[in-house]
């Protein structure tokens, strides 16, 4: 992928593709899951052709999601490790929300909010996967007791609601912080964006002369 001159690579092409597969799976799972969760959403089943199609697809989408999310996890887990900066950042959450980010202590590639989204999803998606397997009627309907499945379906629903809440935060944050969408659609950000939101990351790139997304990326910084 080519990038405009003077920009910083926020996400590699692999990351972009991986993210959007994950995102698409998640959205479809949300739509079908909600349709099966509450009658007011059942009309969403029409998006999948029929209720039967929706019921059949949902678990397979779940399998796609966990595989895809695993890719994201491998790419992101290191940059999402918690550190002291995150505590400081979190303390200034009010300033973040108030768009006074220049007053917020600088953070690395991801801020504490993004890390919370990451770890939240990293926790919930496996739970959804495991509980989803237990209630996957076609293949595993007879594998466990009905009581186990009742527990599973309750956890699955609660976990899904949690995941959707995180997702709403995630999507809103992407829309709110301008330039984020471009970072996820085209992979690059302006140096100013990086300086504003992820100054430590920006500085580490600058120091290493890397074009991003990580300081040890081999390509030379472009003029």
């Amino acid at each position: 992928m080519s990038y405009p001159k003077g920009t910083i690579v926020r996400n590699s092409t692999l990351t972009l593709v991986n993210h959007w597969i994950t995102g698409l799976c998640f959205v479809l799972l949300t739509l079908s899951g909600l349709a099966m969760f509450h009658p007011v959403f059942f009309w969403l089943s029409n998006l999948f052709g029929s209720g039967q199609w929706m019921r059949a697809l949902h678990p397979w989408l779940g399998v796609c999601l966990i595989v895809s999310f695993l890719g994201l996890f491998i790419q992101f887990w290191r940059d999402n490790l918690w550190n002291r900066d995150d505590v400081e950042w979190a303390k200034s959450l009010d300033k973040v929300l108030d768009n006074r980010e220049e007053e917020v202590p600088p953070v690395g590639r991801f801020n504490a909010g993004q890390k919370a989204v990451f770890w939240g999803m990293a926790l919930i998606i496996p739970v959804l996967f495991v509980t989803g397997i237990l209630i996957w009627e076609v293949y595993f309907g007879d594998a466990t007791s009905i009581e186990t499945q009742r527990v599973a379906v309750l956890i699955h629903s609660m976990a899904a609601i949690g995941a959707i809440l995180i997702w709403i935060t995630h999507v809103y944050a992407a829309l709110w912080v301008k330039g984020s969408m471009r970072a996820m659609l085209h992979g690059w950000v302006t140096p100013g964006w990086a300086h504003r939101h992820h100054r430590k990351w920006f500085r580490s790139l600058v120091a290493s002369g890397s074009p991003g997304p990580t300081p040890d990326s081999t390509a030379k910084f472009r003029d």
Partner: protein
Amino acid sequence: MADLQSQDYIRRSATNLTPPSVRHHELEVAKLIDVSRCIGCKACQSACMEWNNLRPEMEEFQGAYENPHDLNPGTWTLMRFAEYEDEQGNLEWLIRKDGCMHCEDPGCLKACPAPGAIVQYANGIVDFISENCIGCGYCVKGCPFNIPRISAQDHKSYKCTLCSDRVGVGLEPACVKTCPTGAIMFGSKDDMKDWAGERIAELKERGFQNAGLYDPPEVGGTHVMYVLHHADKPSLYSGLPDKPHISALVGAWKGFLKPVALAGLAFAAVGAFVHSIVAGPNETTEADEAHARLEMEKAKRNGSAES
């Protein structure tokens, strides 16, 4: 929802609107299974297969008189046999016809996410409308009696319909009609309770002090009831639940979680919307770009000096 035109429904799965309720004066029916009269001949099973055109797979002999060995999509009723020896060593062969209990408060219907896949008629019959079934298996989890079974062929859920097609034209269910010893009776729920009372009195005379009616109030009563000689211990009869109820887990899932989750999602969405109005977008300013440029140039210079 053309099917609501029958105006016979009192409950419909995954439907929040109230079904037509003007024709409310319908006779509530019930099937009474008098276990003390049952000889375990399986005529009910045979008639059920015959009337409903069901022929489940022929299995192997598995060391029991239960054949097939469990309910399945083609076996809507099943005789279950329990050899029970009491404390005195007296042998009783407790034989029970298993199948849908047609609960007044059906757990399957409560759990079902597909609108109109499970309905309850005003006469009390709980019926699965296959056209609407999506095969999710939630009814299996909702049922306190472990009755519905999902077909591996068409991925739809099946169980006893109480022969709604026969009852609908004024006949009794096929199992009721065929029962050689009259162990299965059919009529209005009130009449069946009266008859059960007579039977229980007779059983007590014969020494079954704990004889009683199984019409569990935890599920609002059922439209299939049992007369048991040991009503104090229903589980003796091949695991008939002592206190059947819709699982608390299912209650939580289909009860409080639904509104709470909706509220949560709505709260999140509204919160985001409000924030976007109040705080506005978080935009990268020219100043940010300038700072960035400065730092980059500085680094570049340092870098050149070094080299």
